[in-house]
């Protein structure tokens, strides 16, 4: 026994042993139920997470494949744009004929 010890036994929640055991049993049952509910929610989420992830991966793959198909076409389109054509003439010191100019810009106007 420690000489300085202050008697705090009246604050001991387990003083009434029967009551304390009952409290433990009630809490254990409640907490167990709570945990099972929580686990079932987590399981549900996990169950949905896999298909959701698979779908996301599939969507990403489709998008990537689609992009690889679209890219060359986009490059071609850019190359035939009048602005680029004009820039090409300027950088190569080419002098296009009037017909070519009309075709280049006229085609553009028709498209609009």
């Amino acid at each position: 026994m420690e000489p300085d010890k202050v008697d705090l036994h009246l604050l001991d929640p387990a003083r009434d042993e029967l009551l304390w055991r009952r409290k433990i049993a009630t809490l254990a049952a409640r907490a167990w139920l709570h945990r099972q509910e929580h686990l079932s929610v987590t399981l549900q989420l996990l169950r949905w997470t896999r298909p959701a992830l698979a779908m996301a991966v599939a969507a990403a793959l489709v998008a990537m494949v689609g992009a690889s198909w679209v890219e060359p076409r986009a490059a071609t389109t850019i190359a035939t744009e009048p602005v680029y054509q004009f820039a090409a003439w300027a950088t190569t010191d080419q002098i296009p004929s009037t017909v070519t100019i009309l075709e280049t810009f006229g085609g553009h106007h028709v498209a609009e």
Partner: protein
Amino acid sequence: MPETVALIAQVRAGNEAAFGALVAAHLRPAYLAALAIVCRPSDADDVAQDAFLIAFERLDSCREPARFSGWLLRIVRNHALNWVARRRLHDVLPEPPEQITNASAPTEPSEPVVRAALLVALSTLTPPQREVVLLHEIEEWSHAEIAAALEISEVMSRQHLLVARRRLRENLTPVLPQEVNHGT
């Protein structure tokens, strides 16, 4: 602690009996840690039980089962602090002891009066002092166990206990001279 580690493993495997044993082993420290902050036995009861529900819901996130006590008490303390903040009871004192002045009378004070006086005396301590003195005197934890659970040094634990006991004596002796000396 090895028992706790084994119990946690069993609980994770779905053993309900192990779950009961875990509650039985840790409810009292949880209650005492809550009491150290909320200072009211009825509130401490609610806080400890709520904290247990939270802890068991998150049991899988307890990475170090060997330190379950510390992990649980941290949840209890956070929950108790939220509880106090929510109820705006920062300066909470226990229910005023009704017949505390009667302690000077020749008749021995009744249990509720002594209990109330103890709570009033405890309220004069800081929360860490309360936590240490309650866990040491009631749960009979060693300073090593307290230090590990509260994440303080053993020296600090001893220091808190020393100061807490002295203050409790100072506060209790005038009202409950016999009760204070029960431990001697």
